[in-house]
């Protein structure tokens, strides 16, 4: 098996699956083109995450990550929840395969997007504006399928940005696209192509 026991346990018995109907905040990251998409709905009470429900289209890692994030965040204050990072989730799961670290590890981002959505709604309420019913999307986290230089989308099998006219490759460390042939990854700084 390619995953740790903890990942498999969360994949088999995911916590907090579903949708909160009258959610206070909704967050969504990823898209089916990349292979992973997560939706988080949250209920906030007195500055704390009273309830979290998620839905995930994606691999075993993506499902386990979503489940783990929900478990880590429930009962926490919004500030504490915002401190949960994708890296800390992966650590809590006993690690993830390297090539899954980016695409599938978006749980914390989806949760943060839901919290941001909640905060925006609160501000709108204060100002007496109608509250938007559309989920808050966390666009800048879609780099797996986007060029890191111009943020243009990378279509299908291409490892080439037609806008910048540069060849791209996936960084073996963080899994994001970086310029092919560069000495280090533009996203995480890992050194590439060691002699």
């Amino acid at each position, binding site marked *: 098996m390619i995953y740790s026991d903890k990942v498999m346990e969360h994949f088999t018995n995911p916590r907090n699956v579903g949708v909160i109907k009258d959610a206070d905040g909704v967050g969504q990251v990823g898209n089916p083109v*990349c292979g992973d998409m*997560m939706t988080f709905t949250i209920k906030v009470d007195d500055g704390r995450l009273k309830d979290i429900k998620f839905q995930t289209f994606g691999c075993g890692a993506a499902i386990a990550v979503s489940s783990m994030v929900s478990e880590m965040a429930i009962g926490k204050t919004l500030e504490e929840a915002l401190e949960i990072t994708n890296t800390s989730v992966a650590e809590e799961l006993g690690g993830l395969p390297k090539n899954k670290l980016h695409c599938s590890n978006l749980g914390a981002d989806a949760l943060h997007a839901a919290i941001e959505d909640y905060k925006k709604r609160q501000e709108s309420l204060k100002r007496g504006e109608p509250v938007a019913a559309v989920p808050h999307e966390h666009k800048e986290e879609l780099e797996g399928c986007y060029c890191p230089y111009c943020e243009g989308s990378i279509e299908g099998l291409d490892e080439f940005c037609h806008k910048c006219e540069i060849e791209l490759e996936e960084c073996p460390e963080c899994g994001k696209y970086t310029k092919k042939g560069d000495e280090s990854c533009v996203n995480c700084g890992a050194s590439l192509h060691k002699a």
Partner: protein
Amino acid sequence: MKSVYLDHIAATPIHPLVLEAMLPYLREQYANPQSLHSAGQEAMAALEEAREKTAALVGADGAEIYFTSSGSESNNFAVKGLALAQRDKGNHLVISAVEHQSVLHSAKSLEKLGFVATVVPVDKWGRVDPEEVRKAIRKETVLVSVMLANGEVGTIEPVAEIAGICRGRKVLIHTDAVAAAGNIPVNVKELGVDALSLAAHQFCGPKGAAALYLKKATRILPLIDGGIQEGGRRAGTENVAAIVGLGKAAELAAAEMVPRMSAMTALRNKLMAELPRRVSRVVLTGHSEERLPHLASFCVEFIEGEGMLLSLDMKGISASSGSACTSKALKASHVLLAMGMDHALAQGSLVFSLIEGTTAGDIDYLLEVFPPIIDRLRKMSPLYTKYLEEKGQ
């Protein structure tokens, strides 16, 4: 727990008679076939016997068979070797959009050396239109490579027709028959091809033994230079035991082809008919009739392939998928995308491949455990929720 292996397009078990034939060459008969002493000559005789048997599987002469280490090597050898040997004639090649990576990437490598590759499209069933190949051939074209059967969607390509077009234009044609040879009747003369790749692990032979058929008097540039093995066209001490295994597996496949095919076709048809009946929004991928007898492939809507593979694995069922998440490169299958399939649907790819020993009980077990797996994963999927909302449920 019941264990049902349905990923035979990735590997088949070594047939007991194949193993028996191989064992002496892993034990006492370890001599190098290139050695002059009698032990070496015995190994050489075993090698040549295997060559004749492999040739017979595809209707070729023994002298036209070159042993290699894998289907990928055979494809690299054919595409690069045939193109480079004709460099003075032209720099253009034609391949299909659904070729195996070993053909696609060989073409890419050739492009770096100054060749130009035209990739002909396929229809929604994964079939190449021979007319597209005709249109793609130019006066600089030196090679056409179109696979005989696709290992991901099972579709059989009209290679004989394409070969006819190539002959008329005096262009060499190679076919990657790795998924086909040993599983369906393959005859190089009937197909009219100049080169054909096959691999033993697809028909109950060992991994690490494969071959390239190369029509007599066809020029090719070796990939591996060295000694005089394989007529100087593929150097390196021969993997005698594996090659003997290939020969025996070829002999058995040729003898048992018809019963093997009919047994597998019946079960495959059952799977193809029943799976979409038991689970809604499941589509068959590939051609419904012109397809490999042992391969049933689907796309399941609203969920992703890896989750299905992991869940099936927990029930003892081994299958494969062309989804992005299941590939190391995290890219959805180029085959499904070339067939015009939507990215999201391609992520739900699932491939079951059978073998002669697959039983009706195995298929029934799969059909029984499959619906609850899909139900569970769909309940977790935001795409399914959206679909239900739009449907008004």
